[in-house]
């Protein structure tokens, strides 16, 4: 029989406001096994924890129930408290009487009644708890970073700096990501390439970092400390180790009309290409969709001109299997498609562009060599309209846009407007906005300079329609502050498209068993306290895959993720979750149902000798669970018809006891 202590928390008035805590602790005093029951203002405080420790010592408690906030909040706290007082931390159960009781019910009587029942269920469960000890597993001291943008680069550099090997997997032929496409960065206006490319070079030169460019992750197995990852290196038809990046092949390639995705298809590249001058790795890649040699065997020019002999038309996709201790997701973002925003005529006029396209137009390495020229006629635009929140904060148009704020648009639009006015003072610049959001270091000052020093016309209101007419774009908009309709004849319209997670994120999340929100951003383990960890142990989040971010935020999160990875990789062993499945070999009949449903391959079968009636021995096939691999989902427990498979911490009889207590 357990000796259970019940501790009812007031949580100030959070619980005590709707739940009669005294009544709860009194009622639970009479439950089977309960020998002590008390309530206190803040159980999680030092004083509250001391109360628990003292009660454990004084009443020789074997188990405790804390009626408090969600176990997701303080279960770990109270487990530590219990451990410090000398009882097994898994002898602690939490009755969630805050989030699932006092905060959702308004009436004191109702709240108290329910709190007592939840407390009884927790007591019933603790009565059946058994001390649990976590198992241990080794840690592979190597990290995988998925995505080679600024987030992935920073994370990889930091991990490598700590002395651990890191692999970066990047789908594009080069690392660099979105930042490589940007011109200047707000609010300092330093050039993106100037600060990014040295880091890219650092990556290339770091002995601890391997880059798998033009590659993708195709399978992930295992668990924290012990991931087995399959990486597909797509055939680039160029031997990476041999290619010097001289560019002779690119120069001679006869296939010159391939849309250049790096410049957002605003100019063309060749079929064999290096995305940009500072690409890392600086090796050529053949685009199999456009290469005549690969398509119909007629060409072979690049092979002839390559002095290094790097061209290999027979190259195959290559699968690499590697073990990792930790995985960082840094898959980044993309602007959303403008196809559904017909009102802005994006698909009707070349002169309606997105902000990222604007970046390329103003970038010295871009299609216009940095001169701001209209895509349609390469003329200098004199009136530019910037439209903010295109697809962002779009609660009514969920089918084409996003409900959330994309966060970076206000600042980059201010940057674009300011730079335009700075370089081309003859250009009138209008910015239509819903709100201007500038909560960042030097952000508001930056925005005000745009308005006050550079004379950018900021107009609160949305653009209703853009209609191409001749070489003009007729912009109809409303000015909410002056309550009037505006008609502007613009030369160029720039849309601040919302950003969304990269499409590769969703399948990746499935492979990683990492959870995502409805917008396909990766969910963090805790929105405030564990912002760079995924709920899946060993998977970390870096950059915009977790939510919209600007560069400084991305970099700081990337470093944070790296430090989390480092603190994982420095460990030689991990202690696991002790709430794992275990098989009662006497009951197991070896049917394999459990093995079939286990998502982790944690169950294996062995032939074992059993003593049978009348001194006979029988060899039976029975299931065994690898506690280091088992994650404790419990799928096997239901698949098992014999009731041989049970889950520690969530055992059949424990859950049944909870059901019984609730249904009393």
């Amino acid at each position, binding site marked *: 029989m357990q000796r259970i202590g019940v501790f009812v928390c007031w949580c100030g008035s959070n619980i005590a406001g709707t739940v009669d805590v005294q009544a709860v602790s009194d009622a639970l005093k009479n439950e089977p096994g309960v020998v002590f029951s008390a309530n206190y203002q803040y159980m999680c405080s030092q004083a509250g924890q001391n109360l628990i420790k003292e009660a454990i010592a004084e009443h020789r408690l074997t188990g405790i129930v804390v009626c408090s906030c*969600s*176990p*997701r*909040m303080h279960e770990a706290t109270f487990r530590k408290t219990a451990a410090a007082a000398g009882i097994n931390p898994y002898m602690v159960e939490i009755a*969630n009487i*805050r*989030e*699932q*009781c006092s*905060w*959702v*019910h*308004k009436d004191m009587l*109702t*709240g108290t*009644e*329910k709190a007592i*029942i*939840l407390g009884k*269920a927790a007591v019933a469960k603790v009565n059946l708890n058994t001390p649990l000890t976590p198992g241990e597993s080794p840690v592979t001291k190597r990290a995988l970073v998925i995505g080679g943008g600024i987030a992935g680069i920073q994370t990889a550099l930091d991990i490598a700096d700590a002395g651990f090997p890191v692999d970066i997997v990047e789908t594009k032929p080069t690392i660099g990501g979105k930042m490589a496409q940007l011109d200047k960065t707000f609010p300092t206006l330093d050039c993106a390439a100037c600060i990014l490319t040295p880091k890219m070079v650092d990556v290339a030169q770091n002995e601890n970092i391997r880059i798998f460019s033009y590659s993708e992750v195709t399978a992930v197995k295992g668990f924290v400390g012990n991931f087995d990852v399959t990486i597909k290196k797509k055939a680039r038809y160029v031997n990476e180790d041999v290619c010097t990046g001289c560019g002779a092949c690119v120069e001679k390639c006869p296939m010159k009309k391939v849309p250049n995705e790096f410049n957002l298809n605003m100019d063309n590249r060749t079929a064999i290409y290096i995305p940009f001058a500072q690409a890392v790795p600086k090796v050529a890649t053949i685009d199999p969709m456009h290469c005549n040699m690969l398509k119909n065997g007629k060409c072979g020019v690049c092979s002839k001109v390559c002095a290094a002999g790097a061209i290999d038309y027979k190259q195959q996709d290559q699968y690499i299997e590697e073990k990792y201790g930790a995985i960082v997701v840094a898959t980044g973002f993309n602007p959303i498609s403008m196809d559904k925003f017909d009102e802005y005529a994006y698909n009707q006029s070349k002169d309606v562009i997105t902000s990222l396209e604007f970046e390329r137009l103003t970038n010295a390495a871009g299609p216009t060599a940095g001169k701001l020229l209209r895509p349609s006629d390469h003329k200098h635009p004199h009136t530019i309209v910037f439209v903010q929140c295109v697809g962002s904060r779009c609660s009514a148009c969920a089918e084409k846009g996003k409900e959330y704020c994309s966060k970076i648009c206000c600042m980059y639009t201010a940057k674009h407007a300011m730079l335009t006015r700075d370089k081309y003072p003859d250009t009138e610049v209008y910015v239509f906005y819903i709100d201007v959001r500038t909560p960042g270091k030097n952000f508001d000052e930056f925005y005000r300079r745009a308005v006050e020093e550079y004379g950018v016309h900021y107009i609160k209101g949305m653009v209703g329609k853009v209609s191409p007419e001749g070489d003009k774009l007729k912009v109809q908009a409303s000015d909410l502050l002056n309550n009037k309709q505006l008609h502007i004849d613009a030369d160029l319209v720039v849309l601040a498209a919302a950003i969304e997670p990269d499409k590769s994120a969703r399948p990746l*999340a*499935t492979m990683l*068993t990492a*959870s*995502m*929100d*409805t917008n396909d951003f990766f*969910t963090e383990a805790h929105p405030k306290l564990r912002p760079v960890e995924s*709920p*899946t142990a060993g998977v970390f989040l870096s950059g915009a895959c977790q939510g919209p971010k600007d560069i400084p935020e991305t970099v700081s999160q990337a470093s944070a993720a790296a430090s989390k990875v480092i603190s994982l990789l420095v460990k030689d062993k991990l202690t696991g979750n002790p*709430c794992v499945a275990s098989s009662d070999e006497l009951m197991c009949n070896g049917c394999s149902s459990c093995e079939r*449903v286990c*998502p*982790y391959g944690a169950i294996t079968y062995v032939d074992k000798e059993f003593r049978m009636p009348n001194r006979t021995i029988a060899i039976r096939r029975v299931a065994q669970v690898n506690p280091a691999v088992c*994650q*404790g*989902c*419990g*799928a096997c*427990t*239901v*698949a098992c018809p014999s009731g041989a498979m049970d*889950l520690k911490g*969530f055992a*059949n009889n424990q*859950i*049944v006891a*909870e*059901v*019984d207590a*609730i*249904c*009393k």
Partner: protein
Amino acid sequence: MQVNEKKPLIVAFCCNWCSYAGADLAGNNRLSYPADVKIIRVPCSCRVNPMFVLRAFQRGADGVILCGCHPGDCHYTSGNYYTRRRMAMLFSMLDYLGIEKERTRVEWVSAAEGAKFAATMNDFAQTVAALGENKRLEDLRCKR
């Protein structure tokens, strides 16, 4: 004390990673739902054995709802897919035995869907209340 009209009792099994967190979020946002709903935390919806569901009815529950991560979002990759098949079969069987199908439900509620959690519970509680007491899966020994 006045004898209260018997309120429907609802047992909600919530997976730790999504739905239990969704319920917490409903609490954080002070979204109310009937106190008749009592939550039991399980690591994953796939931990829920049909016997738990039947047991709840036996002991006096009027409705049983399972909440898990959305299909594809299971913390354990595939747990809720098994839940989906198992409960589809169990519920169909209960219906086959003439037990009101409205008394059982599976809902996918993510950690971010506090509002959906509250709305689901409100709706389910209402549905179950309309059905009245569970008579067809009750155990008379537990009713006194």
